[in-house]
């Protein structure tokens, strides 16, 4: 057995290289979680004096130690000043600040090493590192094993790389929080699960990571759980994701029932048994997409993501922009073989993605909370990614995932930097205004020049202005959609009676419209935040400062990545440079599936067509930015408290189309009603408590009553019963 494995592994070019250490990549953050978690628990256990008398005695000792009154007074004064201006740091802050980012950095270094090994090995097949047999029952054998291939390593690079930067940013952003070690414990745990998700070599491993990141997302959204709204937001995210997970699980059951395996290699090999376009494969893909819609916030399950902004801003950057929410895109790219077999499911994915991109972008136009703008922007960009993977351009979808991780993390961290400055200024003056509302900001470029420049880079990147990262990835997706309007399985299929090519044209137009809106709302956010007059207030203004270097340094790195990230995958018509690098890189994983969608031919457009498409995309982005600059007047804004309520369609947008209210009416309230009347009063109180629990007690009591009536205490009666019994038994024997 061992020899066989060694022989099989020996055949792979990655055997014996750094890839053998792939298990350490997720384990390192887990170690960080354990250390930070223990520090967090130990500090909770010692919070405050248990015995007031003891504390008092200790205090007395302390005073005795000093002996000189001046020193004591100075100490007392310093203490009271600290209380006012600077909350005390957590006592383990130093070690947590070291451990939290360090495990990620180590993990990133190891990932980079493996990435380089993989790049050098030219492996056509994935390298699977088997750890142990996890579930072995009947004909199901699932190993805990990690997979090193081109897709999983790209994801791991993004997660550990961007994750490290966000951890470093968090050191500055969260430094004064009383739950500092708890925060880093959750964040480390999240990275662990996220790495399990992308590195696992089978669907159950992926599912463990999938659920684990959901848990960490819940914990971190509700990180400041003492406010009910935050705790509710966490619950909402968790519950909405359960709906998606139901779909994912059903897809896994169907896969196992029909293919008898759940490993990626097995499913990819066995997918040939499934008839292309059959109802079965479409069902599997649609259920899987339901899971993706939950995790990656697509219509109709996107509602949790904007609320998830209740968590700390670096969490929004890491979990709700760069990594976790892109897990659905990863899942579809990972299952590319399945989706390429089902044009109907693929068109559904692309159409829902396009619809989400457009829908969320319109809501983003009228949000005032800086993080809400970014949240809807994330939903919209995730829609773009689904358009990419939906039309079978899996590499393009993953490309946008990577560039989006760069510029959206930068935008969120930048907004975190702004909120940090606003919050500090408000804290100094005891102001309780909303530190996240853009109407209270304005003109911040004078106070925060570094954040200002970097955020503009990210804005240009997301709007799709060359040469920034978003331009290349967005253009790649839109170009792929256009290229597939003819001569692909998607174009030939019909979706609810509509020809596939018509759908693809519609998706293309929706994508362009979303791009226009993206440029408008992002420019609006920048104008209202950084330009125009400052609306923060006279006293507060003096306290507005740039964030410390520990926060701006990660921003700068992300700024560079947002600017040059597009070089990962230059368009095919580009005269020089690594053309289509990521596309070729991912070919061993998704190439076959992509070719199936395009019927074996590379989906290439004429270069002249591509020039026109790129021209249109850039023109639209530029028009959006110009329109926003021309129409929006930051000078006319007033602070939140003085702003009148908006009216008409603007109000509809500001209230997010009243979708939450609609869901509340259509889903939540009926569900609560049914739960209350049928499940609680009928089922639980009536059937379970009434009939089963109390009923069985009544029955036993009744039988007991009959028995006690028979217990007369008369020995004679008992003797009669005995004799009758004996006679009956003897009679029965003799009659037989």
């Amino acid at each position, binding site marked *: 057995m061992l020899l066989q494995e060694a022989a099989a592994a020996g055949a792979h070019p990655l055997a014996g290289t750094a890839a053998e250490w792939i298990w350490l990549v997720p384990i390192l953050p887990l170690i960080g979680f354990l250390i930070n978690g223990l520090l967090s628990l130990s500090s909770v256990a010692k919070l405050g004096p248990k015995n007031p008398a003891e504390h008092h005695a200790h205090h007395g000792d302390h005073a005795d130690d000093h002996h000189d009154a001046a020193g004591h007074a100075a100490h007392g004064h310093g203490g009271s000043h600290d209380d006012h201006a600077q909350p005390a740091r957590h006592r383990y802050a130093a070690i947590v600040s070291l451990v939290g980012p360090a495990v990620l950095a180590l993990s990133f270094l190891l990932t980079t090493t493996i990435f380089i090994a993989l790049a050098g090995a030219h492996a056509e097949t994935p390298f699977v590192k088997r750890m142990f047999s996890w579930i072995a029952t009947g004909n199901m054998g699932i190993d805990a094993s990690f997979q090193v291939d081109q897709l999983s390593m790209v994801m791991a690079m993004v997660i550990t790389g961007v994750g490290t930067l966000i951890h470093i940013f968090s050191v500055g952003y969260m430094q004064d929080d009383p739950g500092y070690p708890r925060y880093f414990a959750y964040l480390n745990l999240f990275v662990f699960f996220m790495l399990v998700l992308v590195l696992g070599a089978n669907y159950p491993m992926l599912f463990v990571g999938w659920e684990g990141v959901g848990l960490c997302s819940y914990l971190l959204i509700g990180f400041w759980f003492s406010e009910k709204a935050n705790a509710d937001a966490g619950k909402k995210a968790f519950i909405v994701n359960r709906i998606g997970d139901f779909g994912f699980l059903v897809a896994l059951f169907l896969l196992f029932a029909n293919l008898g395996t759940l490993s990626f290699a097995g499913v990819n090999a066995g997918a040939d048994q499934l008839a292309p376009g059959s109802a079965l494969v479409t069902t599997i893909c649609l259920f899987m997409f339901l899971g993706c819609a939950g995790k990656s916030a697509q219509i109709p399950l996107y509602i949790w993501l904007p609320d998830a902004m209740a968590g700390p801003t670096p969490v929004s950057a890491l979990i709700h922009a760069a990594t976790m929410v892109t897990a659905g895109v990863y899942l579809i790219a990972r299952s590319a073989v399945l989706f390429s077999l089902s044009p109907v499911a693929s068109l559904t994915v692309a159409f829902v993605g396009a619809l989400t991109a457009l829908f969320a972008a319109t809501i983003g136009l009228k949000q005032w909370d800086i993080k809400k703008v970014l949240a809807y922007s994330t939903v919209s960009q995730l829609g773009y990614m689904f358009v990419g993977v939906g039309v079978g351009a899996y590499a393009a979808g993953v490309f946008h995932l990577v560039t989006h991780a760069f510029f959206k993390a930068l935008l969120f961290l930048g907004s975190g930097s702004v909120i940090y400055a606003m919050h500090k200024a408000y804290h100094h003056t005891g102001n309780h205004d909303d530190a996240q509302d853009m109407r209270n900001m304005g003109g911040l470029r004078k106070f925060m020049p570094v954040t200002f420049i970097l955020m503009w880079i990210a804005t240009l990147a997301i709007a799709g202005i060359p040469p920034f990262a978003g331009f290349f990835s967005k253009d790649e997706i839109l170009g792929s959609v256009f290229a597939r309007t003819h001569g692909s399985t998607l174009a030939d299929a019909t979706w609810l009676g509509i020809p596939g090519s018509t759908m693809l044209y519609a998706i293309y137009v929706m994508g362009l419209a979303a791009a226009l809106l993206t440029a408008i709302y992002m420019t609006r956010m920048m104008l209202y935040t950084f330009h125009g007059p400052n609306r923060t207030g006279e006293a507060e203004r003096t306290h507005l400062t740039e964030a410390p270097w520990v926060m701006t340094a990660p921003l700068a790195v992300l700024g560079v990545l947002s600017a040059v990230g597009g070089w990962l995958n230059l368009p095919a018509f580009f005269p020089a440079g690594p053309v289509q690098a990521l596309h070729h890189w991912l070919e061993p994983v998704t190439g076959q599936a992509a070719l199936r969608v395009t019927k074996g031919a590379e989906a290439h457009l004429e270069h002249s067509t591509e020039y026109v498409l790129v021209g249109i995309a850039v023109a639209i982005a530029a028009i959006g930015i110009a329109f926003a600059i021309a129409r929006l007047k930051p000078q006319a804004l007033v602070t939140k408290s003085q702003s009148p309520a908006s009216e008409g369609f603007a109000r509809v947008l500001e209230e997010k189309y009243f979708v939450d209210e609609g869901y509340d009416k259509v889903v939540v309230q009926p569900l609560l009603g049914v739960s209350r009347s049928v499940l609680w009063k009928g089922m639980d109180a009536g059937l379970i408590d009434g009939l089963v629990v109390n009923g069985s007690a009544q029955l036993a009591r009744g039988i007991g009553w009959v028995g006690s*009536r028979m*217990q*007369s*205490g008369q020995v*004679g009666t008992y*003797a*009669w019963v005995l*004799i009758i019994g004996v006679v009956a038994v003897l009679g029965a024997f003799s009659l037989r």
Partner: protein
Amino acid sequence: MMVPEALALSAVLFCIGVVGVLTRRNAIIIFMCVELMLNAVNLSFVAFSRLYGMTGQVFVVFVMTVAAAEAAVGLAIIISIFRHRQTVDLTNINLLKG
């Protein structure tokens, strides 16, 4: 060999004992009826030992031993009941009524 006759006598004695236990209310008489049943059984043991060997007679010795012990305990209980309630009429003694 008189075996059928002995068995018939044994059956008659046993039935007298059963009827006595069922119909009488005085604890002493019930007690004596129980003894009667035991001795009816003893008689059939002895009768059968004619046919099947000595084992039956050995059992009779055991039964008499146990009956003696039972008589000692039973009479002691009846005496203590009498001391307590000045009667041995079992219809009045129903403390274990449910």
